[in-house]
């Protein structure tokens, strides 16, 4: 999926897939926090929005 997004010109960092078990609450929280920070650093996504 990341490779496909890159091919259509969208930053692949905006898409993450992780395998986290239901018993790994801390890992889930950490992953989402990290992802949120990464995306905030990238700024708003203008490309997949409706630009009308």
């Amino acid at each position: 999926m990341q490779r496909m997004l890159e091919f259509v010109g969208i930053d692949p960092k905006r898409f993450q897939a992780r395998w986290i078990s239901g018993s790994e609450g801390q890992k889930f929280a950490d992953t989402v926090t990290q992802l949120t920070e990464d995306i905030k650093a990238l700024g708003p996504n203008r490309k997949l929005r409706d630009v009308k």
Partner: protein
Amino acid sequence: MSITEKIQAKAKELLDSGTVNYIIGWEKGTFWHQSTPVFVKKAADADKLIWDEFCINSLSTYLIRLDDELKVGLFVKGCDSKGIVRLIQDKQLKREQVVLIGIPCNGMRNAKGAVEKTEPANLPLEQKCIECVHPNPVIYDELIGEPVVIADKSDRFNDVLELEKLSPNEKYQYWAAQFEKCIRCYACRNTCPACNCKECYVDQYRVGWQNKAVDLAENQMFHVTRAMHVAGRCVECGECQRQCPMDIPIMQMNRKLIMEINELFGEYAAGVDLEAKPPLGQFKTDDPEEFM
């Protein structure tokens, strides 16, 4: 005996003996440069069937949701036969339900822009035939005609490689211009032998995966999702792009995914070997786990 005569004789034989309920082949269309799919149910109608340079339509798509009770005779080119393998692998069809008469194909001609009737040999080949990897049927019960020599078509990935060289913004601009054209007629999905879901995600409008609005954002969503849904299963028949009324380079996206799958999971040609499982349809302990 010409191939057309052989087709007609074979169709009569199958219908007379009651082996099949009906035959799907091609008949001459309204124009000299058109041959359209035809369903023949009676032996007396078998004379309609023809074979010429315009039998471009892939017939495998007509077998999606075939009644379990029915048995069908089908004429297949290389691309049609890969579609059949796709449907059998996806459990949409049982092998016993089809009698396949293979016809090696020298490529179909494109008469777009031709005004006067000319010899088909003077017309350019269809794009999907230029890029065709399997001109000979990969699965059949009987073969009519001589197998065609298979040429090396590894250059069909060139336009993907060219596009990859561009910057992210240039790539985005390129695809935005393409997706902007899309009218979301879903012809690409309807003709695709890999798009055989009973209910497509785009039709589940109450769930809301895909908004019905036809604008750039939704079109992008549709095209990326469609490509991902056929990833690893696209048989490269090229029907999606040929049927696209807006000339969107759909195969360029499909080929991008084919390239990635070859790289990640090893060389795999979808729809060729009935026994080979699709790389995304099975689990191996040595699968790449980029996201783990």
